[in-house]
């Protein structure tokens, strides 16, 4: 369970497979589409029910990854089951896939934790290997369909901490009433050892973690556009 992936105490389910290749990914083992442990829908429902007592008023289940929307079609019946059981569902997503399946999935979701890696399209590409236009479209879809979201922004020194980009992001999303919270996730090197184990190069070697001052500058910057900003 966790306290960092959505409101309250939450059962966090990590789904295998991702379409992004973020340089700083802390869970590189979840990137390949193959791997992971096939788990039955009912097994996840059972786990959620056995821990439901701990969820409290705001907690529930969070689907993270990897990129969970890659399995949107399979998740739809699971989300329906969880809703039947009265369990609050968060979906932690990069928002890069917007099709009929993901639209249906989003509608079954109580809250989306939308990861925006960068606002500047070029820098976004450099960090993730993908463009960010789909993510922005997904955000607009969530807003239009009244689906609450938290924006998560990984702050990597020298890669995502440009003032003009954060300001552009602020200007773009300022009017989104469904954005309830901005979470700044400070870049950390806790996942670095996993690269060694996977025999992959760690491309951010040498990038230092944020100083408290840098985090504070970023927080103040976001606060100029959004009422609720936290450093996670």
């Amino acid at each position: 369970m966790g306290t960092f992936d959505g409101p309250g105490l939450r059962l966090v389910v990590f789904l295998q497979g991702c379409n992004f290749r973020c340089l700083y990914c802390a869970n590189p083992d979840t990137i390949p589409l193959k791997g992971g442990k096939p788990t039955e829908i009912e097994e996840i429902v059972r786990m959620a029910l056995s821990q439901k007592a701990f969820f409290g008023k705001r907690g529930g289940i969070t689907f993270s990854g990897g990129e969970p929307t890659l399995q949107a079609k399979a998740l739809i019946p699971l989300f329906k089951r969880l809703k039947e059981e009265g369990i609050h569902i968060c979906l932690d997503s990069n928002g890069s896939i917007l099709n009929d399946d993901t639209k249906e999935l989003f509608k079954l979701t109580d809250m989306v934790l939308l990861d925006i890696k960068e606002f500047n399209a070029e820098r976004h590409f450099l960090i993730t290997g993908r463009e960010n236009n789909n993510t922005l479209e997904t955000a607009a879809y969530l807003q239009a369909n009244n689906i609450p979201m938290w924006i998560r922004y990984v702050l990597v020194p020298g890669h995502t901490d440009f003032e003009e980009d954060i300001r552009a992001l602020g200007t773009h999303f300022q009017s989104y009433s469904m954005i309830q919270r901005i979470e700044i996730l400070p870049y950390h090197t806790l996942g670095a050892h996993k690269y060694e184990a996977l025999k992959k190069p760690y491309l951010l070697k040498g990038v230092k973690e944020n100083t408290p001052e840098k985090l504070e500058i970023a927080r103040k910057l976001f606060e100029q556009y959004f009422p609720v900003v936290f450093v996670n």
Partner: protein
Amino acid sequence: MELNKNFADGIWSKEVNVRDFVLKNITPYDGDASFLAGPTERTKRIWSACLTALAEERANNGVRSIDNKTVSTISSHKAGYIDKENELIVGLQTDELLRRAIKPFGGINVVAKACHENGVEVDEHVKDIFTHYRKTHNEGVFDVYNEEIRSFRSLGFLTGLPDNYARGRIIGDYRRLALYGLNRLIEAKNQDLANLTGPMTEARIRLREEVSDQIKALKEMKLMGEYYGLDLSRPAYTAQEAVQWVYMAYLSAVKEQDGAAMSLGNVSSFLDIYIEYDLSNGTIDETFAQELIDQFVIKLRMVRHLRMNSYNDIFAGDPTWVTESIGGRLNDGRHKVTKTSFRFLQTLYNLGASPEPNLTVLWSPELPEGFKAFCAQVSIDTSSIQYENDDLMREIRHSDDYGIACCVSFQDIGRQIQFFGARTNLAKALLLAINGGRCENTGTLMVKDIPELKGDVLNFDEVMVNYKKVLKEIARVYNDAMNIIHYMHDKYYYEKAQMAFIDTNPRINLAYGAAGLSIVADSLSAIKFATVKTKRNENGLTEGFDIQGEFPFYGNDDDRVDNLAVGVTKFFSDTLAELPIYKNARPTLSILTITSNVMYGKKTGATPDGRLKGVAFAPGANPMHGRDEKGAIASLSSVSKINYDDAQDGVSNTFSIVPRSLGVTAEDRVENLISMMDGYFSKNAHHLNVNVLNREMLEDAMEHPENYPQLTIRVSGYAVNFVRLSREHQLEVLSRSFHERF
């Protein structure tokens, strides 16, 4: 006698019944903590004098001074003060702050040794009297112990038995003194005595003698009150008097007895009735109300008993277990949270963190949100409080007016008592089952007719058959020891002050205990699910185990192993229940180690779970350190499976979590801690010690104790000053699981 006429009438005004008084007059409070007041100048002055004295105590090897001449009784010492002109609540155990008294009725050799270890010798005259003319509890027990009990005791199968220290655990209903005054209480006991007519069986004679002793104790309390200029013969009329009277009743107990745990009961919501009355009349304000509680709590923090050094092995950190139970609900659906429940918790801010009094919140998810949030905040800030499941205890123990004795043990206040039973080492017992009934360290034959195991690979069914035989035999010896101990304690060191505040002829629970449950569960799991081969020495005794393959550990919400822990608890509890007990007491069982998990581990050889010889056990019902790998919720879920029906003396769980892992914001952390406890207790778990700490801070405190004089942590049903633990106990605390995720 003149009763206090300010309050709603009820049964309480016709007979001694404090519960009825509380029921009729309590003002439950549903709000938050915003009304609370800080400490007054007077309180700060007194507390500052205490801090100086506490520093001297630490500097002087943990004992500030000893009165080695005066045998401590209710009226033995004249008035003592900390800072007389600033004290609203008066009374010390001796004539000086933190001066420890001798109480040789428990055992003169114990007192002599404790004095000697602290650089003074017990007075010759006292020694002479208690050696040649007055027998003690300790002497009585050892006169009667047989070889079998001695050997189970000395080899570490039964340990920490209250045969060389006072048993404690009995909670007087100290509220009675405030509500009724001494005259009325003496009158009631005289009436009871008159009603105890023949035939004069041994039990009847004994009870008549006990009630007579109680009456003498009550009369002695009058004298003690007079030393302080207090007329305790009448009831208390004001809030200040109510607090003072309750404290005087408690003080008489801790002057007369030095039981391991001398708990306070559930006085806060009782006192709240008097405080509310004075507040509504405008005779006091909130600052004064808080001042009363702060000053009462200062006194409770200063309670001391004289102990031998070896006592520290089983009860580390000089605990006194002044346990005060706060909150909970009434059978009529109302809750018992009052503003004074908050005021008690507020002392941890006004005076700083502290292990005593042992503040225990009787938790129910139904308690008001404002109180739950304040409790969670106090836990996050101070790590000084523990929680017990009120819904569970109210339902199974049938009382809504109870306190917690010692660490975790239910006690119906004024109507029941308990006999403290220390504990059995279940892990060492398992090794008897694998070694043909012989002690794994010495080869001594402890249990006859346990067949040697057939091969090198342990067979689960074969081990279980032997283990059950061993547990039956240990239970028999344990029961014998308990009967002797409590017979002698009644005879030579009867708790006349405490018993004077309890109904005549109360129900008695015998609180048996068990240690090493997680070691046993993991060992049986290894034997069942992996391949465990014995490594034996030249005498055929196990000195280690070869484990091939995987097996589930207790603490990961895995029924395969958790059910083994549940089953062993039930079997041992059922086995004990078949044995007859002195005074027809009823058996209960705790899964609790206090801090003896270190010492038990030392006395226990390598176990089939892979634990090496001498390594400390996990405390209480905790999963073994580092083995509960699936996070906090899985760990809590495993412990919640131990059935309270099988362990009605309590299932202790000490839990440590890193502050950050509770959430991003301060509000998140409070809310998540509440969710966690609601979840844990709704699964019928019994007890939780909550520490919210970083390991790094404790490491720093080990190196620089002078910077952390008040650093408090929960260890096992109680809290300690971390810097007062031995290095060995500090390291054991550091080795425990600090959950970094849920």
